[in-house]
Every structure is written in C-alpha cells, then in structure tokens.
C-alpha cells in the first residue's frame, strides 16, 4: 500500500471499475479500493438475502418462505443493458463478456388508462396493437421508416429537416402523429422521462429511437439484456480486467483521508498507511464536499411470488408509466427479473419500481407502480440523493463520478465514463482505447 500509483480509484461501482479497467489496459499503475467488503458499491447486487434485510434495517431474518439466502442477488439500482448500447460495446471490446452470461428481457410494457399494454416489438405486433388506431398505425410506420433511414450526415435522408434545429415536436407534426403515439414514442421508445425533449432539436430523440429499434432487432422480444446473477457481475468483470492488467484490489478498506496539497491530490490514507497517486477517481460518497445534490430518486425493491399480472406470466419485463398518465413530470419505471436470472430463490420475482422524487411524499408518488405488483411479499424502500461533482477535477486531479440516475439503462453511465476519461486525459474517449493490448487468452480457446 505504501507505494506510488498513477491512479487510485475509490469505490467499486460500475463506473469506477470500467475506468479502472481502461486505465490498467492503458498501462497505468492502478490501486483500487472499496470501504465495503463486497464489489459494486451502489451498483452492487446484495447477497445473501440476510444482508439486504440488514442493509434496510429490517428486524430479524428473512422468513423461511424466501428460501436460501445465498440464492439471492438483489440489485440496488435497477437497470437493463440496451442490446446495441455503449455498455455492450465496452463488454465486447474488452472481452469482459467472456465472464458473463446474459438473458434477453422478455418484454416491455407501457401503462395507459390504468392498464398495461405490450410495447410492440415487431411490425406485426405494432399493426395488431390496441395502442393505436388503424390510420395512426400507417402514419407511425412512415415515421419509423424515416427514423430507420435517418443519418444526420446524409441530407438525402433528412427530408428537409435540420437535425440540429428542427424540434422533435415539429417532426411529430410532420408525420401527423397524435398525442397517444407521441407519448408512446417519446417515453417507451426514446425513453425520455419528461416531456422537455419535445422542444429540443430532434437529433437526440431520433438517435434514441434508433438505439431502441437497433437493440430490439438484435434479439427480438425486447431491446434489453440482463446478466445472470445480477448487475453486480458487471463491476466484478471489469475489476477482473483491471487486475489482469496489473491493477491492485483491496476491499474492506476504510478510507481515512484524501490528501490534497496545493489544491492537487497527492494520495490516499487508509488504516494509517498512505498510497500516493497522480490522479484519483472516486464515487460521490468518498468526497461529498465536492458534490452537489441535483435531485432524489426513490427505489422500491419488491419481492413477489408471482409474475406481474397481464404480462402473460413472463419471468422478466419492464413497465413504463408515462408521467402524464399519472399527472407527474417524470415517468415511473418497473424492472422485473426473477429466479430465472439466478437473482432470487425458486419461484420468486424481484420487481424494482423507481422514479425521480417530485414531492415530499415519494412513497405516494410511486404507488401506481406498486399497485401493479400486488400482492408484495416484502418491500425495501430507499430514497437516494443524486449527486454530481461540483467541478471537472482538472485542477485537483480528483475525478468524481455521478450517482446512478433514474434512467432504465446504462447509457448515461457510459456518458459519464467517457466524460471522466476526457477530463483525465484531455483527449476524447475512443472505444478502441479499451482493447486489450496483449494476448492473454491461452490454450485451445485462443484463436
């Protein structure tokens, strides 16, 4: 520990582990520590179930009906991977995907008028969906063809619009889409949590819809993937990558002080020892003074003994409750997974409802989601601050990540990683930076 490192990383959340992996692969000498005895920090999957009960201060042990505690791996932050998204790209380039097994989430649903409807995943489904009338369907189809062909660098595909000026609202008008279809497109396909996007340039919204449809095209059913044994496997996989490239790992290390001299980080003190470094990466919990709160997220982990009603008894799904359906500003999400993903005991389901807090009674805000899940065997409620760094860190060389937000996938997490990379190195992130620099696969698997 009494050594000099290029980079010290505090916290083994996904953001930190990916950055640690990138830095080690680039040849930096990395020390990675966590105050907890487990990997994953806020993006951990908690196991055994007893530890989840302790974490949420529930009295006593889980009842016998919950099965073996070790069969549970419960995510603290509910998210899925977009099959064609940035995280999947990082997993493939780093070959961390070798350590993981995935399943496709079986379906995506949207809440409308008190009921849930399947988000159509094929053209046939779209044409038979009761979400839209027949004329609407034709116009929607034209819109989807426009989106599929859209390439901001190819004017021929733009049909006269300016991707950086024309608002998304005007695009919807151009295709004469009604309010219901607009809601559905913006919230279930572009995955916006508010309606603010309507008056912004359409470029981003269109690219989000493209990401959704390209992800959907990869495996069918839904655009989402989920790793067996829980999301906590992701940080562990990238930590292994970092270790293979020389990164040193220490868990259960209380961090006593981040030492700053003349405004610049010089090291970290733990258990009386000092490790020196040139740069520091940490999650907001390690340096609260350098963060500010931009909001709160409520997350309710619900253990169920039944699949969610009206989903055709599938063992995993996402439900989006668009904000205007429940008179809110932000959408509510439900992510459900189950024993089929090795995250719960046989016959059990885990549904996590989450949304951005708008009032001082967040539990009431999230009730429409919980009503869809009843009966609930056990609830675990958390309200977390969304923290972001107060400065870029280029002076202090202390680079803080952002808290995991309420989005339903890891795209904003990847944006944060790319952003930190740029702040640390002064160059724009390039996925090829993550490519393994040496041959490290041996035997008959090495092709």
């Amino acid at each position, binding site marked *: 520990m009494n050594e000099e490192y290029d980079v010290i990383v505090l916290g083994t959340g996904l953001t930190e582990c990916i950055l640690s992996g990138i830095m080690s692969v680039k040849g930096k000498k990395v020390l990675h520590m966590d105050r907890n005895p487990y990997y994953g920090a806020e993006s951990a999957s908690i196991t055994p179930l007893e530890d989840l009960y302790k974490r949420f201060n529930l009295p006593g042990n889980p009842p016998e009906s919950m099965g073996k505690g070790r069969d549970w791996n419960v995510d603290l932050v509910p998210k899925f991977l977009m099959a064609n998204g940035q995280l999947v790209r990082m997993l493939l380039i780093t070959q961390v995907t070798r350590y993981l097994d995935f399943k496709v989430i079986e379906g995506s649903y949207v809440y409308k008028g008190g009921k849930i409807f399947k988000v159509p995943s094929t053209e046939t489904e779209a044409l038979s969906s009761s979400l839209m009338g027949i004329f609407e369907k034709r116009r929607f189809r034209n819109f989807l063809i426009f989106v599929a062909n859209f390439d901001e660098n190819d004017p021929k595909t733009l049909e006269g619009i300016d991707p950086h000026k024309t608002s998304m609202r005007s695009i919807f008008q151009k295709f004469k889409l009604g309010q219901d279809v607009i809601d559905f497109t913006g919230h279930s396909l572009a995955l916006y949590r508010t309606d603010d996007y309507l008056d912004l340039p359409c470029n981003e919204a269109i690219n989000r819809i493209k990401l959704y449809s390209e992800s959907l095209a990869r495996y069918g059913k839904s655009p989402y993937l989920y790793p067996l044994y829980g999301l906590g496997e992701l940080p562990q996989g990238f930590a292994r990558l970092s270790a293979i490239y020389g990164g040193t790992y220490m868990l259960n290390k209380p961090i006593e002080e981040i030492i700053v001299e003349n405004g610049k980080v010089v090291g970290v003190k733990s258990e009386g020892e000092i490790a020196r470094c040139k740069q520091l990466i940490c999650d907001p919990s390690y340096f609260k003074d350098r963060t500010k709160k931009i909001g709160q997220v409520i997350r309710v982990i619900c253990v169920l003994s039944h699949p969610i009603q009206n989903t055709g008894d599938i063992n995993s799904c996402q439900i989006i409750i668009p904000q205007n359906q429940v008179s809110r500003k932000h959408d509510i999400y439900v992510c459900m997974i189950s024993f089929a993903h090795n995250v719960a005991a046989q016959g059990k389901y885990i549904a996590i409802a989450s949304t951005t807090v708008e009032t001082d009674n967040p539990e009431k805000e999230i009730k429409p989601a919980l009503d869809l899940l009843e009966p609930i065997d056990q609830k675990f409620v958390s309200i977390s601050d969304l923290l972001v760094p107060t400065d870029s860190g280029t002076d202090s060389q202390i680079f803080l990540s952002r808290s995991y937000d309420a989005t339903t996938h890891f795209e904003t997490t990847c944006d944060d990683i790319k952003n930190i990379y740029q702040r640390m190195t002064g160059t724009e992130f390039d996925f090829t930076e993550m490519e393994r620099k040496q041959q*490290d696969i041996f035997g008959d698997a090495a092709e």
Partner: protein
Amino acid sequence: MALRELKVCLLGDTGVGKSSIVWRFVEDSFDPNINPTIGASFMTKTVQHQNELHKFLIWDTAGQERFRALAPMYYRGSAAAIIVYDITKEDSFQTLKNWVKELRQHGPPNIVVAIAGNKCDISDAREVPEKDAKDYADSIHAIFVETSAKNAININEVFIEISKRIPVADAVAETPGRGFKLGRQASESRRMCC
C-alpha cells in the same frame, strides 16, 4: 464425442505456483520468472475422459487473492477448484484452510476440490509433511497430490483426477437459468440462446 466445458478456479497464496501449474498444463512450459499473475485471463485445455471431452476453462486469480479481494464471480459455476500451497512454506499450508473456508462460503455446493502441494522438486526445503497434507485433504474429501510445475510432476494427474470426480453429465441437474454469451453477431448469439 460429447464436449463438456468445466470451469476450474485456482486458489492459494501469492507465490505458491498457481499460474505455473496452469502454464505447465496448458502450454507444457515453465518460466521461473513468471510475473505475479498478470496477463493470463483465460486458459483452456481439452482432454479426453472415457467417452467425453472435458474442456477445462481455467480461471487464474489475476492477483486478486493478494489482498483477499477475489470476487464472487470468480467462484461462480466452477466444477472444480485447485487449492495450491507450497510444500516449502508452512504458512501457505496453514492459509489453505482459509481458502477452503472461503470456497465453502462462495463456491457452488458440489464443487470438486483438489489440493496441490507444489514445488515437490525442492523437497530438501520441505516444511509441510506429505502425510499431514494428505490427512487434511482426506478429512475434507479432497483430491490430494504433490506437484512440481517446474519438473512436470503430477500436473496432468490433477486434472485427470478432477475429470474422474466430475459427476456424469446426465446426473447433473441443468442449472435453472442458462444464459448466452454476447457476440459481435446477433445471429450467432441467437443460435446459442436457450
């Protein structure tokens, strides 16, 4: 011939020769100055056992054992674990028992355990009597061999013994949630999807 993939994880203190054992098994070579484990992420070797092919997917610690920071992922789905100590270092035999405990806590319930007393080529400097280790291994129903990665003694034998103890294929309950590996081609992944 049926091909079975068997994950094997290595455990034991830093410097006992875990990587050297794998290196000898997979590449049949030995490097006395092998780096403290970096660089080898994935080593495989296929051997025939009766009418099956066993493809060993061998996971090395990547140095994460040094400060006891092995992730649960490391143990997950392992068919077997090889716990290594150095016969010339009593300490490394004492801590072996902690590794067994750790494996019981994090590893799959029916994992095949093999104990390898490495560096048996330098038995002049022996600190751990073979009988003590054998008795301990018997007490936990583990395979026991003394090995030398340097002189290629008993290395293949460890894996042969593991193959013998792996339950026959159809007797193994299929794990409930079999997933698939992500590939660059969606079609390829779909084919592997259950």
